[in-house]
């Protein structure tokens, strides 16, 4: 029942998550870098539950967050989130370590995930929900050709809904 999907880009491999990714994910969720995506969290079991929920997303929806690896090393995750509290499926990306930012990895990974969403699930013109203070994420969705559509809220916090262009662009 576990999907094994792997997507190669120029520099990265996106693959379905594995249990051994947990330490990298937990370090990220415990860090201030997770402030716009449900963190920082402190309780280890709580972080485990969040990690396990990503597997459940794949199990229930058939899609979810891919682990991003570069030369075998886990550097982040990207893919689709469609929780019951979401208005529609969302394309998102978390780069775990600040040292890996500014190299275009998020843009490269999200572009590949966006194309996969369309090819595998017919999901096109995806949304990304971005907190108004999250300048790094805004820069990435701009590079991907997304445009701000409207303001809304997500889990009680203000966000901008950015609309992506056709996946094949």
């Amino acid at each position: 029942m576990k999907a094994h999907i792997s997507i190669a880009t120029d520099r990265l491999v996106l693959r379905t998550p594995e249990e051994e990714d947990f330490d990298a994910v937990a370090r990220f969720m415990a860090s201030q870098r997770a402030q716009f995506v449900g963190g920082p969290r402190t309780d280890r079991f709580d972080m485990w539950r969040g990690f396990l929920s990503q597997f459940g997303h794949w199990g229930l929806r058939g899609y979810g967050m891919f682990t991003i690896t570069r030369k075998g090393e886990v550097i982040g995750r990207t893919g689709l989130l469609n929780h019951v509290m979401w208005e529609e499926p969302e394309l998102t990306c978390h780069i775990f370590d600040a040292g890996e930012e500014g190299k275009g990895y998020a843009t490269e990974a999200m572009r590949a995930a966006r194309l996969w969403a369309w090819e595998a699930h017919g999901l096109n013109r995806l949304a990304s929900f971005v907190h108004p203070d999250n300048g790094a994420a805004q820069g990435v969705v701009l590079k991907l050709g997304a445009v701000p559509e409207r303001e809304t809220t997500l889990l009680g916090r203000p966000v901008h809904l950015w609309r992506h262009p056709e996946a094949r662009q």
Partner: protein
Amino acid sequence: MTKPVLHTERLTLRLPLQADWPAVRAFLCSERSAYVGGPMEDENAAWRAFLASAGHWTMKGFGYFTVLHNDAPVGRVGIVEHPAWDEPELGWQLFDGFEGQGYVTEAATAVRDWAYGTLRMGPLISYIHPDNIASQRVAQRLGAQVERETTLLGGPAQVWRHPSDDDDGNPEAYA
């Protein structure tokens, strides 16, 4: 792996589906979940826990079944093994309004036998809070016995040990 479906005299046990969410949310946000990590503070926390249960199946190939009676979810029974667990656990949760009918015992017997036969596990344990009298009664009906006291996720827990697969001391548990 294939998706197992277990049938008992009155119940069907299958993997979780999104359709179970309203029943699971009601359970996780109520006092009934006090001994299994609840009540959850809000819908988001409950949804994470629900997805995590589904994810346990995706990651490990076993987890909590949704227990159905006449197509309605009456509870969740299954095998869990989180990192803080000493070994795989047979666990059960009964939703509001379905008490006193033996559903948990019936479902847990089926799951235990499936775990012993298909997963080659056992003899299994159940972690039960010392104040959770209802669950202790279920464990007794299943033929389990208290093995030791421990802590689980910072709270007190009794470790109950279930009979092994070839234990013929309690034949009714295998009926």
